[in-house]
């Protein structure tokens, strides 16, 4: 399954400027809409369907200084078979690791559908020259990464140098070639809705296959408002270019209830086509366990404990 699009999904700079000029978002109205979507009551089959979607959309993630090959071994096993007691539960979409652990992750997922995503570009801060970011990315790809998650240059963004931010993504996309590229906005730092929408559109215009909310490394991670905004950006981008980009939400989505609310946003704002790992992902670690508990509860009608599910 190919998630990659060659450079046909980019927009030139002057068209990009048109897109991001005069961006207007009303905060109160947006929050209301997102709150209203959160009142959807998802039960029975539709709940089970959602839970299975979520597992299949997860990028099991470990991005710690203390990660080792042993840790990767545990996590990849869980990624491939999240619930050994229930083979109906699908594998997750991918594992997400630092470049140094990519080859081990690749080795452990060889005979499965689980992809290996690597962060790069001086994740999480992005505070380094472009040359270093290119090297970082190239290394991960050489090690076998199927997907690359980069961070946008927030320094450039906040200095008002949107062209620089755009050029960097173009350059990194060139390194990726057919490797799937996700661009992390770090919405917790961008804060305002206009910033988030602007950064989304620039990232899409520069060739990102996915836009992603957060690194998960700061206390303000993903929010449903950010996801909604990014969905709007994805839709507007599709209207202009015909290209269908994907969204990844990461950082702070701890339970199924919250994850289902994200799916509702995607479902009602973008449509059923986006409810697929090719177009939507959750960056998560503990989320999968809660989902497994909920799946089991639906089957057995009893609340579960996490010790029934293997550690990842």
């Amino acid at each position, binding site marked *: 399954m190919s998630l990659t699009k060659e450079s046909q999904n980019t927009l030139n700079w002057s068209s990009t400027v048109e897109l991001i000029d005069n961006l207007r978002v009303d905060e109160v109205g947006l929050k209301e809409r997102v709150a209203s979507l959160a*009142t959807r009551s998802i039960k029975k089959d*539709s709940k089970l369907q959602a839970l299975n*979607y979520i597992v299949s959309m997860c990028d099991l993630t470990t991005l710690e200084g203390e990660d080792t090959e042993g840790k990767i071994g545990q996590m990849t096993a869980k990624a491939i078979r999240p619930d050994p007691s229930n083979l109906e539960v699908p594998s997750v979409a991918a594992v997400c690791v630092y470049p140094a652990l990519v080859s081990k992750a690749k080795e452990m997922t060889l005979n499965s559908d689980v992809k290996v995503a690597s962060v790069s570009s001086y994740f999480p801060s992005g505070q380094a020259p472009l040359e270093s970011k290119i090297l970082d990315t190239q290394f991960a790809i050489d090690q076998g990464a199927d997907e690359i998650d980069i961070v946008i240059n927030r320094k450039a963004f906040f200095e008002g140098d949107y062209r620089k931010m755009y050029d960097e993504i173009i350059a990194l996309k060139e390194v990726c070639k057919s490797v799937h590229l996700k661009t992390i906005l770090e919405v917790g730092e961008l804060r305002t809705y206009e910033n988030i929408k602007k950064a989304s559109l620039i990232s899409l215009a520069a060739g990102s296959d996915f836009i992603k909310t957060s690194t998960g490394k700061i206390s303000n991670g993903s929010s449903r408002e950010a996801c909604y905004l990014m969905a709007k950006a994805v839709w507007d981008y599709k209207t202009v270019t015909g290209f269908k980009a994907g969204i990844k939400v990461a950082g702070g989505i701890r339970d199924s209830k919250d994850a289902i609310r994200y799916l509702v946003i995607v479902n009602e704002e973008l449509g059923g086509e986006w409810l697929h790992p090719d177009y939507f992902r959750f960056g998560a670690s503990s989320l999968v366990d809660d989902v497994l508990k909920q799946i089991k509860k639906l089957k057995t009608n009893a609340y579960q404990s996490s010790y029934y599910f293997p550690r990842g």
Partner: protein
Amino acid sequence: MNTWEYAESIESSSIVNIEKKYGIFIDGKFQTAKSKKFIKTISPSTEEVLSSISVGNKSDINSAVDSAKSGLKIWSKLSGTERAKYLFKLARLIQERSREFAVLESLDGGKPIKESRDFDLPQVAANFFYFAGWADKLDISWNTKGLKPYGIVGQIIPWNFPLLMLSWKVAPALATGNVVILKPAESTPLTALLFAELCEEVGLPPGVFNLVTGDGTTGAALVQHPDISKIAFTGSTAVGKYIQKETADRDIGLTLELGGKAANIVFNDAAIDQAVEGVVNGIFFNQGHVCCAGSRLVLQEDIHDEFVSKLEKRMQSLRVGNPLDKNTDIGAINSKEQLNKITSLVDEGVAEGGSIFQTECDLPSNGFWFKPTLFTNAQPSYKIAREEIFGPVLTTLTFRTPEEAIEISNNTEYGLSAGIWTEKGSKILWAADRLQAGVIWANTFNKFDPSSPFGGYKESGFGREGGRHGLLSYLKVQS
């Protein structure tokens, strides 16, 4: 094509307990009406009969007035603090039984449980809390000691927000020291009847709150009774005019809250996605059964196509169906008559030359339903652009300059509300100064608060409900 359908999530109706038959509520308790006439009240989403209610006649109105007179004797002797305490207790009880009231409202009137639960009921409780707090501080409300209650107030309320309209009427009336005879709408009496039970429970002195159900004849009898000192009416402009005419020979207080044909103006510098939400909310909230609904989309021509395309996409995600399904956005049309009225106006709109867009959805076979509808290529002269449809139907008109937007918006006998969508602050203030409407929503719509005065200009009525200004509807200058 990948789809994710939401399973039904039905709010159980076992929480409500509807009697087979109801009398009227006077002298602090339920009694058999003198009138032997009953009508059925049905659930508009299934057409099932819910109960039989009395159609109060002149004799019943007389009894109610006598009851109110006794009630006034007691009520006028109580301090503001005492009145406040009753109203606070009612607010509390409403909060505690919110779920029950919400389910009952959705059953009786057809609105989605999501709305009755998340909007109607919280607002009802809030209104009682807010006005309770005025009861003991009327002397400082208007910097004058010259204001006094009217005495016996007759109140007639509509079927679109039955319990909410009850709270808008009853809470300020009682807080200011008046006593009330309330006539709820013919098709939606059940939540008012349940409210009467609460009055009994808090020990409200008998005669302070009186309830006479019925139809148009009951309302007329109430309006005509010579001992009513003030009438407050919410409903159609036609009936409002009738009431003003009918009471011409009496010196009574009168407030009218009537129809509307509000313009929702979208400028090209609006936050478009939020404007789409606001426009959708403006006309499809409560199936468009809203006096202040934004039923005319007044759209700047240069963003017409982009806006309409987003609007149609957004409309398509509206879920029409069982009001008790928590995922329903658009419920049933309140009655067969209303459905017929909407249908005929829409047919005329098509005949006059408007282009029609309706969402694709399956409508239940029983009950009264209408698909969310959008007209484009309509002219200000079309009937659909001038007459109040009171249904989920939006008519689009275009403008080129800000002055034109104002002209088009004001070009109506109505003047209840208006919406302005632009990110430019000075333009909002400039437009607000020029729009002839009692409530103006800028970059939002359908926002209500007990502290925020509501009411119309021109033929949308006179008088205000809510807020400090709303007190003046129930206080008169002592002569």
